């Protein structure tokens, strides 16, 4: 039981990281908190639901292809939203930006309810990933392990992109100093759009990966965004490694916590977050003079 929950926790941590990393990247570059990030995750799950039966159903390759395409589709939608709405309000009041993304939450939720109905759907697991791995007396369910591994691949690709490609260098420059990127003669708008596309892709991917392991419904958006926020707060916004650590802490605490304190697992996570926040605010007392 413990090992099963640990593996589940690792998987949830990894999907949370994929979402939170997108949130953090977007915030790092555009200073916008995308409240609709959970909605993009939800959309990824629904897209996967549609795609799984179409692409070699039951196979491993078919499933991951479906997830990848779902992620790309969500990314395209993210770009459309960025170009039509967000682009007009960069530099506006932070609250206005937040509300614009809240508007997207409402639109997507109702759109999803219109298309797929209010009931929970389930996405079939690929056949090879059903069942569990037995080591000694312990069982390790395969699917969460596979999702965790897939997540690690994405993390690797992400690190490679950020540190070893031109796009990554621009991204880091954009996070440190936005004016500098403009000086380098790179179109700032392009970077914003690209970052939003990447963040949306990651959210869609996470939604797709996690889809077979739970219910897919129109209420996923808020559950997910709250967890992702907590991860960002623990890890520190704009900090990718912090997000990874935060996501794993939250995922594992949730899964293990459910075993011992079934009703208090969320409270436990809150306590961790509160402790981190207080520790951090002690560390930068009076840091308001920038």
């Amino acid at each position, binding site marked *: 039981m413990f090992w099963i929950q640990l593996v589940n926790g690792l998987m949830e941590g990894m999907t949370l990281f994929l979402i939170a990393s997108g949130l953090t990247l977007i915030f790092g570059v555009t200073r916008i908190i995308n409240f609709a990030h959970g909605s993009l995750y939800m959309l990824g799950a629904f897209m996967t639901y549609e795609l799984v039966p179409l692409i070699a159903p039951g196979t491993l390759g078919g499933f991951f292809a479906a997830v990848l395409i779902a992620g790309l589709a969500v990314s395209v939608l993210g770009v459309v939203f960025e170009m039509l709405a967000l682009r007009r309000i960069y530099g506006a009041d932070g609250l206005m930006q937040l509300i614009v993304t809240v508007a997207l939450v409402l639109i997507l939720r109702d759109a999803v309810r219109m298309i797929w109905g209010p009931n929970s759907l389930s996405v079939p697991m690929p056949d090879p990933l059903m069942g569990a791995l037995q080591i000694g007396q312990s069982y390790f369910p395969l699917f969460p392990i596979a999702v965790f591994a897939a997540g690690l691949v994405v993390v690797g690709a992400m690190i490679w992109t950020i540190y070893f490609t031109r796009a990554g260098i621009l991204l880091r420059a954009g996070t440190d100093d936005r004016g500098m990127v403009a000086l380098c003669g790179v179109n700032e708008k392009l970077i914003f759009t690209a970052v939003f596309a990447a963040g949306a892709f990651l959210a869609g991917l996470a939604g797709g990966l996690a889809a077979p392991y739970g219910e897919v419904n129109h209420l996923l958006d808020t559950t997910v965004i709250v967890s992702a926020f907590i991860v960002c707060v623990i890890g520190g916004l704009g900090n990718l490694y912090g997000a990874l650590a935060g996501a794993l802490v939250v995922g594992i605490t949730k899964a293990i916590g459910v075993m011992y304190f079934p009703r208090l697992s969320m409270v436990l996570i809150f306590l961790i977050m509160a402790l981190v926040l207080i520790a951090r605010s002690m*560390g*930068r*007392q*009076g*840091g*308001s*003079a920038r």
Partner: protein
Amino acid sequence: MDPILSARHIRKSYGAFVALRDISLDIPRGERHALIGPNGAGKSTFIACVAGQLSGVEGQMLFKDENVTALQPAALARRGIGRTFQISRAFLQMSVLENMMAAHVIASGRWASLSRAIYAERAERACAMLDTVGLADRARDRVADLSLGDRKRLEFGMALVGEPDLLLLDEPTAGMSIKERHALMEMVAARVDAEGRTLIFVEHDIDVVMKIAQRVTVMVRGAVLAAGTPAEIKANDEVQAVYLGGGH
């Protein structure tokens, strides 16, 4: 003379960048003291340290013989350190009068009061202060609509409301014409002398410094290069080389 402010071995770094390296400075009570130096010398950082706005500051700060090293800005303000900011920071979306009233409410310590009586009590003093800084006819205007110079004047007035023993002015004349600079600083000097306050100010206009300051500290790259009377500073070859002569 007994110093009102005594800074000992103040160090402050941001990561690898050392903004202040071992600054020690004594400011006697009642002195008008100027901090000068090229950009990036650490003048504003030092002011922020004295006002308690930075964390991770090493060294010791004594104010009126009390160790105030780790105190928060509000606590320092209540002990008698008032400041203005390099980039004017009045409350932009309020009127000039509301700004002045806010300073009065804070100075009175009655921040949690629901009674508007204090507005009436302090009205006369608030108006007198607006008169002093030359903003009486702009009382109803939003600060955001004021010129930079007017904002600086307003900030100075607000800082005086708290009757600080030590007044820190970070580039009070930036953005003003030469004539305005001299007028403002002469007014400040007269006011500070009459009320027995101590003044530390950061200033780039050397003529203003020479006229207003009784003593000058020259900072370069986070360290004190020289200190002395304006005449001594003017005569100092090293200062001439790095600063006064340096095409400024």
